[in-house]
């Protein structure tokens, strides 16, 4: 490959792909050729940069110029000005990187400053479809080191010492899991597997790692297989992640071609093969026993534990199952040592965690922070705060299994144990920010609807219990709830928690319990006052026109889809609340702020 003086990195993650980055690449190729630059400038389609809110993202090195929301029409200017004449197009830069007209390094920008990228180290840096780029950034060195310099016990010892805990959500010590699997009787074979069945609404870190750096997971699985004594691995990934699936297929084929998967890797006795298994997208298949049942070709349903997969997993053989992000940390621990890893994070949670920031926040996207970073730092500094001058109300972590962190606890340092202590959980890393316009009862209902839909139906507490809870929540949001309903909700929640078969059911009541814990007054307002304080639950709302402010322009009446507004021109209009469907079209159309909901 020839040396290229400039590299144009175009984000090829799912976010930027859907905002049109593929067309940008075509345009860059065309314009570079027009200007005779195609040999000295290289275009690289990378994984996610993290700032999905500003996509499509284009970064040009060696200057490190970060262009955001690039349109096809902008490409010609970037090529002619920046790549031909060396003048950065300041107009198109991510404006945070401009300070007094000088271009700052990306690492000094608020969004990146507090981040520490270990699992995401190659995302947005290398071309995930080119194994040589991965090798050029120390790829497969950790596997080489493990196979030639370390014993399997030594590898496990290092992982144990690192304090790495499962990034899928529960936080089980990874080294222990490896040790249990290594110690299990494997005379009939053992397996390693990767859980890439990321199903939480709002979570997309595993997808981004696989899209941006698939070899990191493949290499780590090979190391794990060496450590526990397996020779076959499976990656269970949902079919809804087409880009990740495609890149994994390419990566596995390239690794085989280079002899990094297959027999006698690096001339040693170690052999390892890896296959993909696609899931149809059932949330329950993220639960480890259901996932393995699905890999075996059966309907994805969980089974009781023990026996744990470390003893009886795939086809009743010992199986090591880790999550994508857990694997993405392994090579760095092997290369840099456990002591390096333990220097990052808190006492009981080492390293970093990737969060998918979403909801009412400026910088929607992917962030990787050291454990122990406070929620305030994530929301206000990295996330850029809440848009439209609204107030922070709560953050939801752990998706349908997690809970809410209210504004009063915004200074909580985030790690596994602190989140459990306040009734939430780390979960896989979805972090949804909510502002004052969010109704907490409605949020609890949203997550419960999700679990009711996704319950596999095998055990009664989950199948019937969550449904009953949802019916109660539905009553409350429609203004038909009673105080006794709130007590019943709590009783049901505790019952389901302690009796459901698998993690899905056991954690399903968490969103309800945590909102009840911190926002009980909102539930009571719905039940007693028949009011939704955030103005979300439609049944409890009514729209009113303030006759003092109304100019009688009739604009709202013309916007109303059900003709519920009537009146004489130039005199105040009125809303027929019986006809009103509470769509809010009138409120947003009024030029005089005369319409409000109550």
């Amino acid at each position: 490959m020839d040396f290229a003086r400039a590299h144009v990195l175009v984000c090829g993650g799912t976010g930027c792909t859907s905002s049109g980055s593929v067309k940008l690449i075509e345009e860059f190729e065309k314009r570079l050729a027009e200007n005779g630059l195609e040999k000295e400038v290289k275009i690289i389609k990378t994984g996610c940069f993290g700032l999905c809110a500003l996509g499509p993202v284009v970064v040009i090195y060696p200057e490190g110029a970060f262009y955001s929301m690039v349109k096809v029409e902008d490409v010609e200017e970037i090529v002619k000005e920046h790549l031909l004449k060396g003048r950065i197009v300041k107009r198109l830069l991510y404006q945070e990187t401009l300070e007094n007209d000088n271009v700052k390094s990306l690492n000094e920008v608020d969004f990146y400053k507090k981040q520490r990228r270990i699992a995401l180290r190659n995302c947005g840096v290398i071309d995930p479809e080119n194994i040589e780029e991965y090798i050029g950034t120390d790829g497969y060195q950790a596997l080489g080191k493990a196979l030639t310099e370390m014993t399997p016990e030594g590898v496990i010892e290092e992982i144990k010492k690192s304090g790495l805990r499962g990034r899928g959500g529960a936080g089980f010590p990874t080294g222990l899991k490896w040790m249990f699997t290594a110690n299990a009787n494997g005379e009939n074979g053992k397996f390693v597997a990767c859980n890439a069945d990321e199903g939480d609404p709002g979570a997309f870190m595993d997808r981004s790692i696989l899209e941006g750096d698939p070899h990191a997971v493949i290499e780590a699985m090979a190391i794990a297989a060496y450590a526990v004594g397996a020779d076959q691995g499976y990656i269970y990934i949902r079919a809804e992640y087409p880009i990740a699936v495609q890149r994994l297929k390419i990566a596995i084929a390239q690794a085989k071609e280079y002899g990094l998967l297959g027999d006698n890797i690096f001339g040693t006795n170690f052999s390892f093969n890896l296959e993909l298994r696609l899931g149809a997208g059932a949330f329950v298949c993220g639960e480890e026993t259901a996932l393995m049942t699905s890999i075996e070709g059966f309907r994805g349903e969980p089974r009781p534990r023990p026996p744990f997969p470390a003893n009886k997993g795939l086809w009743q053989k010992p199986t090591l199952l880790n999550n994508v992000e857990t694997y993405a940390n392994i090579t760095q621990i092997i290369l840099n040592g456990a002591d390096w890893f333990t220097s990052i994070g808190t006492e009981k949670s080492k390293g970093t965690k990737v969060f998918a920031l979403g909801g009412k926040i400026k910088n929607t996207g992917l962030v990787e922070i050291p454990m122990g970073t406070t929620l305030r730092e994530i929301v206000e500094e990295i996330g850029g705060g809440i848009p439209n001058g609204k107030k922070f109300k709560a953050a939801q972590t752990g998706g349908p299994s997690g809970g809410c962190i209210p504004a009063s606890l915004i200074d909580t340092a985030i790690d596994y144990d602190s989140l459990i202590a306040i009734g939430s959980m780390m979960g896989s890393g979805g972090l949804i920010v909510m502002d004052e316009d969010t109704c907490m009862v409605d949020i609890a209902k949203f997550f419960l609807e999700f679990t009711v839909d996704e319950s596999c139906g095998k055990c009664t507490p989950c199948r019937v219990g969550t449904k009953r809870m949802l019916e109660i929540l539905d009553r409350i949001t429609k203004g038909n709830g009673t105080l006794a309903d709130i007590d019943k909700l709590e009783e049901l929640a505790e019952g389901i928690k302690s009796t459901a078969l698998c993690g899905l059911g056991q954690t399903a009541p968490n969103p309800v319990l945590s909102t009840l814990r911190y926002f009980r007054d909102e539930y009571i307002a719905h039940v007693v006052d028949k009011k939704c304080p955030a103005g979300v639950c439609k049944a409890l709302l009514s729209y009113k026109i303030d006759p003092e402010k109304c100019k009688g322009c009739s604009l709202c009446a013309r916007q109303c889809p059900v003709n519920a507004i009537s009146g004489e021109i130039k005199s105040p209009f009125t809303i027929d609340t019986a006809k009103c469907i509470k769509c809010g079209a009138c409120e947003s159309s009024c030029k005089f702020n005369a319409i409000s909901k109550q």
Partner: protein
Amino acid sequence: MTPKNKKRGRKMKSLAELEAIKNKIKNQVEVRRESDSSTRIVVGMATCGIAAGARPVLAALVDEVGKRNLSDVNVSQTGCIGMCRLEPIVEVFEPGKERVTYVKMTEEKARKIIADHIVNGKVVTEFTIGAAE
């Protein structure tokens, strides 16, 4: 743009082969790491520079850096340095050293700068602005 190594039929059998690929590609990927230790070669590419022939100079620099597989060297452009009569101008910034300004560059001179200055550490005094003035 992805290099497909279709010709490569042989699987790697040792760590040394992995190392060889890493070294081959290292200087490629390094362009993307913001580091304070890299040498920057900057070519004046304003209208004056281009008119005076900066493009072949730039191409020659890029070609030499690539051929010699030099790591930690960046080639980039800048606007008008202000001495249009001395264009094409090439400046070399090495960490911890004074910057060196070469003037009235040609393709051949550019190749010599890579060989003498960047590789062997000897500033080509005869091409510098001091010698021209």
